[in-house]
């Protein structure tokens, strides 16, 4: 068995906020009817959370959590070492129902943006209102950062987590790093 490595092997850069590639995470794209109780229960069990996220929310963490991606799509986060097993668990529990679960762990990259001015790093590159009144802990947006698609959520008062396609991980890292570079502070929020 070859050794799995993440897109940028944990690269990080320190500006007015810290940008880090966060290594391997188990990610499962799940599509199905979110208002179906059996579906919700099965997905929550796999992620280890109590309830599905509300619209544009993230519940839990990268080690066990669910991100709202669209009215019929969720992203489930589990430890990388357990992702194959958890997909199997979903397929078993929901057998016969109309749903889809795919392991996308090796097709995505995960970044952290940490620091008191973390909001500014994303506000400069995404068409999203990131003011404290409009975007708080647990809020999630699926949007674009400069020229690539990305989803991000606020994981703490001074931290964001961001997921993008692995194929554009280097672009994302350089973009985030440039946006966070010292001297680029805006001080708007």
């Amino acid at each position: 068995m070859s050794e799995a490595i993440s897109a940028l092997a944990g690269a990080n850069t320190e500006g007015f906020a810290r940008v880090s590639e966060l290594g391997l995470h188990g990610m499962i794209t799940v599509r199905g009817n979110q208002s179906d109780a059996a579906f919700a229960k099965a997905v929550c069990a796999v992620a280890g959370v109590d309830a599905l996220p509300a619209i544009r929310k993230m519940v839990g963490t990268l080690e066990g959590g669910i991100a709202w991606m669209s009215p019929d799509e969720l992203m489930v986060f589990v430890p990388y070492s357990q992702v194959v097993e958890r997909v199997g668990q979903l397929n078993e529990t929901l057998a016969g129902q109309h749903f889809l679960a795919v392991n996308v762990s090796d097709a995505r990259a995960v970044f952290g943006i940490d620091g008191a001015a973390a909001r500014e790093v994303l506000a400069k590159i995404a068409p999203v209102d990131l003011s404290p009144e409009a975007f708080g802990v647990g809020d999630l947006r699926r949007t674009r950062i400069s020229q690539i698609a990305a989803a991000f959520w606020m994981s703490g008062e001074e931290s964001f987590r961001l997921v993008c396609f692995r194929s554009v991980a280097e672009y994302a890292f350089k973009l985030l790093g440039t946006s966070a570079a010292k001297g680029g502070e805006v001080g708007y929020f």
Partner: protein
Amino acid sequence: MLTLQCPYCGVMAEETELSAGGEAHLKRFGPGSTDADFETYMFMRENPKGVHFERWRHANGCGKWFHAARCTVTLEVFGTYPAQTSVPPADLLDKIRAARPGFKWREFE
């Protein structure tokens, strides 16, 4: 900058999150249709100066297709609504009638 509210995720999406999908409420004429119907379906489009109905996709977002009604002259947006319909919602048509008395777009007026 055009801003449309995605009826699926509620986001006030500015145009760089969206991709345009052309005219709304086209009826497809495929194999077996007459040449005239097929030509109309394929090529003939409204080109209004005023109220227009369009398809848009929240491409850099939730990914869903939706409809929008807006004015091509002032860029006023009358409203957006989900794609699972072949006619604009009645309340939206009322709103447009109030804002643009006498408007006509295909069979809607």
